[in-house]
């Protein structure tokens, strides 16, 4: 292994990102009402259970066939499914995406087997980004299976009566979400 460069530290997104990062259609990975469209939504909460109104959530996901999209146009997607979306939380701490459910990884797109949304969370007061996963209901993989049940539960989206998926994010507290670190990110 060659010498590695020290990474640039992260910093908080701060309170004033709303004129920079949100953009038209950012949380619509597919148009509302299109075939197979589903709403993935939730609330970001702090250690007191209070909603976080100045957070930003992004997702990266496979298409329904389990392929990881490498499609240009993630800011002006013009109907293309790029597998990426961005949602700032509202005054009630809520984020929401209109998307399609990812399929289990197709051959060559990941050996894990389970279907999940990769999720990254930014917030004022949060000094570096946090990664997590929102697994589809009923999905499991060795990583999820290796967690205590109460922790695994924090990574599983819940199916709602209307077919939507709810995924609440707790930055801290009794229901604190499991956040991830990856090899080669330590320092």
């Amino acid at each position, binding site marked *: 292994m060659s010498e590695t460069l020290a990474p640039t530290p992260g910093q908080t997104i701060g309170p004033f990102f709303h004129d920079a990062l949100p953009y038209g259609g950012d949380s619509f990975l597919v148009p509302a009402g299109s075939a197979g469209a589903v709403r993935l939504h939730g609330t970001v909460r702090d250690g007191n259970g209070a909603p976080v109104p100045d957070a930003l959530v992004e997702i990266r996901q496979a298409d329904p066939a389990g392929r990881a999209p490498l*499609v240009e146009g993630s800011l002006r997607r013009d109907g293309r499914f790029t*597998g990426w979306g961005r949602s700032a939380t509202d005054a009630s701490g809520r984020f929401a995406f209109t998307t399609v459910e990812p399929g289990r990884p197709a051959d060559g797109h990941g050996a894990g087997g389970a279907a999940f949304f990769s999720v990254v969370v930014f917030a004022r007061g949060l000094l570096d980004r946090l990664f997590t996963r929102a697994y589809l209901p009923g999905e499991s993989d060795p990583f999820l299976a290796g967690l205590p049940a109460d922790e695994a539960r924090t990574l599983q989206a819940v199916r709602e009566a209307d077919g939507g998926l709810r995924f609440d994010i707790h930055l801290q507290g009794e229901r604190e979400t*499991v956040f991830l670190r990856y090899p080669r990110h330590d320092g």
Partner: protein
Amino acid sequence: MTTTTATPAAAPALDSQARITAEITEAHAATPPGASQPRIDFPPYRSSTLRHPTKDLRHADPEGIELVAPVFGHSDIDPVEADLTIQHGGEPIGERMLLTGRVLDGDGRPVRHQLVEIWQANAGGRYIHKRDQHPAPIDPHFTGVGRCLTDGDGNYRFTTIKPGPYPWRNHLNAWRPAHIHFSLFGTEFTQRLITQMYFPGDPLFALDPIYQSITDQAARDRLVATYDHDLTTHEWATGYRWDIVLTGTHATPLERDDHE
């Protein structure tokens, strides 16, 4: 305007800078040297108290979708978005500056054709944001928002105005060092980064709990741009250079593009 000396009304509940500074010193002493990332549990930054996880991050091997970044291209960006001085109908007030650098991964490879987003206060230290109530003028010719794509060698380049420092309510008489927010993607989604770039020699560094949440001096230094006189342009703009290193990728050597 009837007075120029009034202190903010919320003052009584706020801690002093001396107390925050003492807490910074204490937190640094309690942290092992060499940490390359901020402490997300950093009490001097009051807003972090209830917003940091208390459990260790769980080690995960990235899979499928985490190993590919979203793709951006020329269909996403208008080249004029890299010039923050021409976006709003007139010349903004302040020190015009050129800002450039490279985005690299942890193995030194350039991050090519990937999105870089920035946002910042104007020269008076104010954002165009409805919740920014700092009583400094809004510059009608400056939005403080820019985007570009890195080129084939990982270079980004913006023309902008040097932002001013501004007060905030973390503690009494708290002032943020001048900074520009950066949002970055690598070749993997696991490399996603949002950070802040600072200016060399800022007298507010020692006092700022956000900058000081990075407890290692060498790591803090990596957030500070370099003044570059060769980039500075005659009768036009000062020049700053700042390189960004994302984390390493998980690609195996055989999958890497070794042909450049």
